[in-house]
């Protein structure tokens, strides 16, 4: 009995896989639209968060202040913050009754971007700080001795750490595109508006539409693979 049902599942999976590849190869509008939205949202949140986190990480790294070590370990603690926790946190803020309720952001792509930014901020800050710590102290002294201002010193150091910083950004992007909790809670999985790869997979699978789920799953894994290849390349530099 078990063997038969196991075979059935395998057959179903196999058919699903064939259909999924068909969907991708024929550039099925639904698949393309969902995948494109996923990429757009994750890229936007990664870039915006980087624009904020790189300077902030430099500020933390280059300044001496009370509680610096505590702050850094706090940041590292939040690397693995559950996405649903971030989703809940952002939900409370932007829901109609929340402090930012008047902006009407709930269940919009902007809400997902905000949520993802919150999610990846600790990773970006923490990894950028450790990228900067990886730069030879003598290089910072050299820059200062050659008359670099504090800002110029920070720029030079970031430039020296560029590959490690780039790796941090890519890691953050990977975490953003693969999360589901935030997109579901503050995006609402609205078809044609806030439905992204991960939310589509969870919905379609529960509906029994295994082909679409598989197609999107393959795309997500391909993206992860590409990210990994780029990351490896970058880290070998």
């Amino acid at each position: 009995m078990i063997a038969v049902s196991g075979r059935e599942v395998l057959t179903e999976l196999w058919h699903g896989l064939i259909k999924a590849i068909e969907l991708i190869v024929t550039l099925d509008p639904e698949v393309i639209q969902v995948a494109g939205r996923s990429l757009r949202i994750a890229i936007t949140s990664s870039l915006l968060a980087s624009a904020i986190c790189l300077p902030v990480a430099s500020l933390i790294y280059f300044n001496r202040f009370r509680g610096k070590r505590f702050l850094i370990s706090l940041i590292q603690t939040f690397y693995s913050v559950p996405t649903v926790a971030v989703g809940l946190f952002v939900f409370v803020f932007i829901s109609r009754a929340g402090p930012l309720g008047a902006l009407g952001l709930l269940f919009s792509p902007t809400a997902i971007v905000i949520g993802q930014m919150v999610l990846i901020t600790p990773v970006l800050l923490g990894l950028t700080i450790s990228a900067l710590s990886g730069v030879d102290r003598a290089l910072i002294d050299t820059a200062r001795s050659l008359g670099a201002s504090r800002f110029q010193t920070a720029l030079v150091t970031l430039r020296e750490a560029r590959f490690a910083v780039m790796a941090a950004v890519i890691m953050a992007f990977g975490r953003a595109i693969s999360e589901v909790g935030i997109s579901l809670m503050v995006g609402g999985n609205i078809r044609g508006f806030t439905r992204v790869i991960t939310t589509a997979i969870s919905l379609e699978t529960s509906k029994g539409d295994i082909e679409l789920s598989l197609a999107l799953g393959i795309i997500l894994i391909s993206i992860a693979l590409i990210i990994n290849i780029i990351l490896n390349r970058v880290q070998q530099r």
Partner: protein
Amino acid sequence: MALIELINLYQRYGERDILKNINLSIERGEVFALIGPTGSGKTTLLRLIDLIDRPASGKIRFDDADTDAPAAVRLDMRRRMAFVLQKPVVFNLSVYDNVACALRWRGIKGSRLKEKVNHIIDVVGMSDYRSRNARQLSGGEVQRVAIARAIALEPEVLLLDEPTANLDPLSAARIEELISSIIKSYAATIIMATHDLAQGQRLADRIGVLMNGELQQAGGARDVFASPRNREVAEFVGVENIIDGVIMSSEDKIVNIESAGRSIEAISDYAVGEAVCACIRPEDVTLALSRISSSARNSFEGEIKWLVSMGPLTRVELQCGFPLVAMVTKRSAEEMGLSKGKKVFATFKATAIHVIKRN
């Protein structure tokens, strides 16, 4: 008016005093060598002068202004200086961009930047490496880039920390040549740290001896080498014969120093009963097979303990109650038949002795 003035300067890392009560003035256009053994605080002092660190206490005055000022003022002052670190680090950029970056920070751009950078790269002899990544260069080449980067700024003060340490002898000689030509063609004030005494002597107008964080002596290169102020400096500058004794008599500044039952005549201001060291350079000791009569006031019989041939010279180690090293030419050593165990007379003039007080 001194360009740089260090007043009662202290630097402390944790519990340890790295620099103790440094007082020093550097004149504009002067080449000053800071010599001292590794770990004596040379780098720490240069970092303070370049305003990279702030001192634990004491004052640094630069061009008649107090450097204990807000960061922006210190940056303006620092931009009038350039510092080549002991282990120079180049940016992960081309040789050209390495030299250009500090000029760009000062707002220099366009054709003026290009002209300047290319000229300096030529000066340090790195034209063939212009677009090469600086990280791929050898130690001597990295040092060249570091020096180019510094002199491109036309600094009023050039600080060099052990510019030839960590280099092979050939590269070291080339870098020294480069520094020497920079001294000649740029009117910059140069402060260089080195543990190489001979290098300090070759390049500098004035020398400061830093030991254990204290500036033991500062003065003309010849003064420091000929008249070290204390036993530590004497040992560091390579005085080989340092004989401990006590002044037993003094008349018209002619003193008799007793050591190991022998009496050495010398010229000194110190009073009777003072514990002193008599310093004699090995070149000033004459050897003879029998007691000679001459104007030299000191002649002691001793036994040869060791002979080492050093090119045209022979270094002879004697025991005449106190150990004594003499330097004679190889030819006279051969003619005299000097050998281990032989008895000889060592003679030196009272005026060849430099007397220093013992602590």
